[in-house]
């Protein structure tokens, strides 16, 4: 596969490490009420869609960026690649 890195251009996915669902960016508050249930859903439960999927990749053999890649899990087609930091920041502002 090829990931079109927003800063570096197309790179072989071989350079990257795949973590999982982009939802892992939204870490719950560990001190809040019901933290265990919140973290259980955050860490363990997955939509695991057959289709468009937003996922985290780490450019380990490159610029060490974490990326949010939007990819179709049935065709492997990649439609969008963002810097995870930008996504995380915009979501925080959203909150």
């Amino acid at each position, binding site marked *: 596969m090829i990931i079109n890195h927003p*800063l*570096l251009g197309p790179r072989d996915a071989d*350079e990257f490490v795949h973590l999982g669902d982009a939802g892992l960016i939204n870490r719950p508050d560990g001190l809040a009420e019901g933290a265990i249930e919140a973290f259980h859903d955050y860490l363990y439960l997955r939509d695991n869609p057959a289709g468009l999927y937003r996922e985290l990749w780490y450019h380990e*053999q490159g*610029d060490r960026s974490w990326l949010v890649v939007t990819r179709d899990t049935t065709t492997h087609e990649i439609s969008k690649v963002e810097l995870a930091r930008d996504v995380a920041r915009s979501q925080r502002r959203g909150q």
Partner: protein
Amino acid sequence: MPEFALAAVSALDGYSQDFDGAVLREVTDLEIVSVAVPIAGQKKLAAKIKSAYGCAVPKPTTTTQSKDGLVRLVSTQADQFLLLFDTATPDGGDKVAAQLNTAGYITDQTDNWAVLRLSGPNSRTALERICPVDLHPDVFALNASARTHMEHLGVLVIRTEADAFLLLSARSSAKSFLHAVVVSVKNVT
């Protein structure tokens, strides 16, 4: 006069070898200093770099050079870049710190790396055997840089001339990296 003196040794004992259409040398005495850009400190740092070296902070995949041509700045990460320059004394970090003082977070990286210079008409065909990044001059032009992997080793590759590449890889695995490059050269020459 101290009882014990410490001699510096290079990663590859100054390796140097000529092949048919390719020359491979270890580059020693190259100081490598990383500068991390503080959050909300980009402008200040860019100004400092400009005044200290007369050039811009390099954009991703590129390098810039100081006005006097002695310092090369290489983008390595969204908020981090390297300065490469020759020096006889092992105080690159301090030199850069003196220039930038607190505008950026400085780490001396010199001893983390082994540096090879591969040049000659066969250098690109040799790298074709281990480098997944497209090094065609139309795509990877003069002063372009890329961080990738070759034979399971992380490598920073910079095109310093039409036919010459600077290759930086981790110092502890330098011998394996040298071996990978040498085999590639031998396989195509």
